[in-house]
C-alpha cells in the first residue's frame, strides 16, 4: 500500500494536465466551467483535439487507437480531463459503441466505423430505451425482420440524448419474437438519414432540448449492419452498460464543481459576506467534500482491482454514489444562489451572476443522473443480488 503516485505516474499526470489546459480551446473549457450547454461544434472540436493527440479513446484496444495504460493511468486521464474542464469524449462513441464494435463486430464494420467514431466524424446516438422499456430494458418491442439482405425496422426509441446531432444510431431490436425476452434481441447500426426514421425533440424540465424520441417506420437497414451475431444483442448491451457505469461517476467534475461552489459562496452572503460565516453552511460543505473524497478514493480502489479490464462489481457503487454526490453539488449551488435562483432567463442585462442564473436549470437537469445508465434502484438491485447474494 502506498499514498503517493510513482514518479512515472506523477509525470504522466503532469503531461496530461499540461495538454488539457493548453491545447483544448479556452472557449470550450470556459463553457464547461460555466456549466453551460456545449454546441455540437464545441463537442467535435474538443474531441478532435484529443483524438489528434491519441487521447480520445485510451480504453480501446491498441490496434484501434487505444493506449496500453494501467487502470490507474486511465483513471488519472479521466480525472484530469474533468478537472481541466475539458468535455468528456462523447460517451456514446467512445464509451459505448466503440468498445462493442472493437470487441464483437466484423472486421468490415470495425474498419468502416472505429476511426470516425474516435474522432467524432460520426456522431452516435443510443437507441435502447422505449416508452414501455425503461429499467426493464429487455421488454423492448422495436422489431427488425430480415427481408432478403435488409432488415426492416419498426418501432420507437426514446430518451435519445443529443439525437438531434446524431449521424448513426446503435439500437437494440427484437429479431426473434418467439424467444424469451433477452434471447431474441440483436444490435443493429442504423443511418439516421434513412427514409422512415424521424427524430422528435422532448423538452425537459430545465427548458432544454437534450433528449429525443426516434421513430422507425419501415426503415431499411443493410443486413451487414448487424453487430456480431443475431440474437446476441443482450450480451453486447450488458457489456456496454457495464462500461457505462464506470464512466458515469464523474468524480473529477464533481470535485471541480464543489470548488466552484465554494468560491461562489465566499461572497454570496448579505452585502457580499461569506456564507462560510454560517457554521451550518460550512459544516454542510465540509461533509459533502468528505463524501466526495471517500468516493474518489473508492474509484482508485476499484481501478486497482480491475486490471483484467472488466467492470468491477463495485462499479454499481460508483454509479449510485457518484450520481448522488453530483446531484448534491447542484443542490448546493441553488442554495448558494438563494433568491437569485429564479433568474434563469436573466442573461447579460441581469445583475445576477451567470453561475446563479444556471443553478436551477442545472439542478433540475441533473435529476437525470440517478435515472440514466441503470437507475439507482437498478444499481441497488445489482449490489443486493450480485454482490451480496440477496436474490428474491
Amino acid at each position, binding site marked *: 500500500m502506498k499514498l503517493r503516485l510513482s514518479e512515472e505516474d506523477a509525470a504522466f499526470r503532469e503531461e496530461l494536465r499540461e495538454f488539457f489546459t493548453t491545447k483544448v480551446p479556452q472557449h470550450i473549457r470556459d463553457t464547461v466551467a460555466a456549466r453551460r450547454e456545449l454546441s455540437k461544434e464545441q463537442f467535435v472540436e474538443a474531441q478532435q483535439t484529443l483524438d489528434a493527440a491519441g487521447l480520445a479513446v485510451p480504453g480501446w484496444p491498441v490496434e484501434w487507437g487505444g493506449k496500453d495504460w494501467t487502470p490507474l493511468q486511465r483513471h488519472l486521464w479521466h480525472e484530469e480531463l474533468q478537472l481541466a474542464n475539458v468535455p468528456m469524449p462523447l460517451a456514446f462513441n467512445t464509451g459505448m459503441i466503440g468498445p462493442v464494435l472493437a470487441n464483437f463486430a466484423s472486421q468490415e464494420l470495425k474498419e468502416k466505423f472505429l476511426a470516425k467514431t474516435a474522432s467524432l466524424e460520426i456522431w452516435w446516438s443510443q437507441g435502447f430505451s422505449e416508452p414501455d422499456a425503461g429499467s426493464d430494458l429487455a421488454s423492448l418491442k422495436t422489431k427488425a425482420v430480415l427481408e432478403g439482405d435488409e432488415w426492416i425496422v419498426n418501432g420507437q426509441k426514446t430518451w435519445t440524448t443529443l439525437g438531434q446531432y446524431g449521424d448513426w444510431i446503435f439500437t437494440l431490436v427484437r429479431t426473434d419474437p418467439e424467444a424469451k425476452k433477452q434471447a431474441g434481441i440483436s444490435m443493429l447500426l442504423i443511418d439516421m438519414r434513412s427514409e422512415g426514421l424521424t427524430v422528435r425533440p422532448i423538452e425537459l424540465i430545465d427548458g432544454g432540448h437534450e433528449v429525443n424520441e426516434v421513430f422507425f417506420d419501415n426503415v431499411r437497414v443493410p443486413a451487414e449492419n448487424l453487430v456480431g451475431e443475431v440474437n446476441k444483442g443482450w450480451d453486447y448491451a450488458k457489456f456496454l452498460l457495464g462500461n457505462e457505469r464506470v464512466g458515469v461517476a464523474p468524480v473529477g467534475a464533481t*470535485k471541480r464543481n464543489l470548488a466552484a461552489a465554494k468560491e461562489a459562496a465566499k461572497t454570496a452572503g448579505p452585502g457580499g459576506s461569506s456564507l462560510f460565516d454560517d457554521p451550518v453552511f460550512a459544516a454542510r460543505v465540509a461533509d459533502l*467534500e468528505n463524501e466526495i473524497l471517500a468516493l474518489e478514493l473508492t474509484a482508485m480502489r476499484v481501478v486497482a482491482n480491475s486490471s483484467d479490464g472488466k467492470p468491477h462489481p463495485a462499479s454499481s457503487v460508483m454509479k449510485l454514489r457518484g450520481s448522488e454526490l453530483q446531484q448534491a453539488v447542484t443542490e448546493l449551488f441553488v442554495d448558494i444562489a438563494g433568491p437569485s435562483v429564479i433568474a434563469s432567463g436573466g442573461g447579460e442585462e441581469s445583475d445576477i451572476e451567470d453561475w446563479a442564473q444556471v443553478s436551477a436549470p442545472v439542478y433540475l437537469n441533473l435529476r437525470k443522473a440517478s435515472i440514466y445508465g441503470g437507475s439507482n434502484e437498478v444499481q441497488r438491485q445489482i449490489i443486493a443480488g450480485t454482490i451480496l447474494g440477496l436474490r428474491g
Partner: protein
Amino acid sequence: MDFVYDSEQEALKGAVAGLLGKAYDSTETRREIAKSDPGWSESTWQQLAEMGALGLPFAEADGGFGAGPVEVAIVAEEIGHVIAPEPYAETVVLAGSLVQALGTDEQRAEILGGIAEGSLIPAVAHTEVGGRYAEQPTAVTAAGSGDAWTLSGTKEPVITGERADLLIVTAALPSGGTGVFLVKPDASGLSRHGYRTADGGRAAKVTFADTPAAPLGEAGADVSDAVALAVAKAQIAYCHEALGAMETAVKITVEYLKTRKQFGVPLMTFQALTFRAADLYVQLETTRSIVMWATLVLADSDDRAFQIEAARRAKLKVSKASRHIGQEAIQLHGGIGMTAEYSIGHYTARLTVIDHLLGDGAFHLNELATSVADHAEYDPFGD
C-alpha cells in the same frame, strides 16, 4: 496510490484473524470473557504478544518490530471483526505512540518493551468529565519541577484504568500547555474506581491527590503537538476497528436476510429490505476507502497537520457509517437483534462506543468546517 497489501501483510492478517477467530468463536465466549475481570483475555493478549502483534509499530531498539501504520491497521481491523475486547488501540497505539514520541531511551525500552512482550498494560488517562473532546487537559494539573512532580484532579473515563500496570496521564502544566506523566499503580494519593462500559469493556474514574508522577521525556515541556499526533494515530486505529466491526455486522445481517423466513419466504424476498442492505454495502465500501487512505497518510507523509486532518476525515465518515450500519443491522434483524444472546447488538454497542472515543463525527466535522473554505479542490495525495 496503491491500496493492496503485500504478501507479508496478507500473512499477518491471516495469522491474527486465525488467532482471534479461535479465541472469540461465539457471542457466548465473548460475553463470558467480558463479564470476568479484567474484561478481556490475558491469555489471548499473551498469544498476540507471542505473535509479535503488540510490538509491531515500535523500533527494534525499543523491543518492537519496526513495522508501520499499515500493519497496525491490519491488527486493529481483525480485533474489530470479532469485537475482541482486548485494549489494542488504547495500549499499543495510543499509549505506545505517546511513549515512542516522548519517552527517554530508558522509558521507551521499559514501557514499549513491556507492551510488546505483553507484560505491561499501560492506560492513557486523557479524557476528563466536562471536557468533552478537548485536546488540552484542564481538570488534572501538574505541579513541580525537575524530576519531582505531583498531579491533582480526576480523569474519567479511563479505558482499562483499573487493571493498568501504569498510568500515562496528560495534565495542564503550571506554565501553560500540556505535559504527559507516568504514575505507578501504588503511588500515594491515587484512587481508581473501575466499572463496566456500554460495550462490555472496562473503564475507571482515576483520581490524583498530590500524587507523585514522573515526566514522560523532558520535564515541564509543552508536548501538545505530540499528544495531538498520538491521538490522531489512535483515532485511525479505532476507525479500523470500527471498519472490521461494520464488515462483520453487514455480513451477519445479509446472512440473516437469506435464512430467516417470514410469511413462508426468506426475508430477502422483500425489496424494501434488500435495498437497505445494498445501502449498507455502499456505506461500508466508501468508508473503507477513506480509512485505508488515512493509514496511508500516516505511513507516507511527514506532515503532522495532514495526518491529523486525515484522521478527522476518517473519523467523520466512520461516525456516519457506524450509526447507519449499527442501527440498520439491528432493525433488519428485528427482535432477535435486541437480545444479548445474539451477536449483532454487541456490534452496535461497540460501534457506538468507538464513535465517541477521541471525537465523534460532529466534533470532527466542526473542525473540518473551519478550514473548508481555505482550499479549492481537496487533494488526497497531500502534494
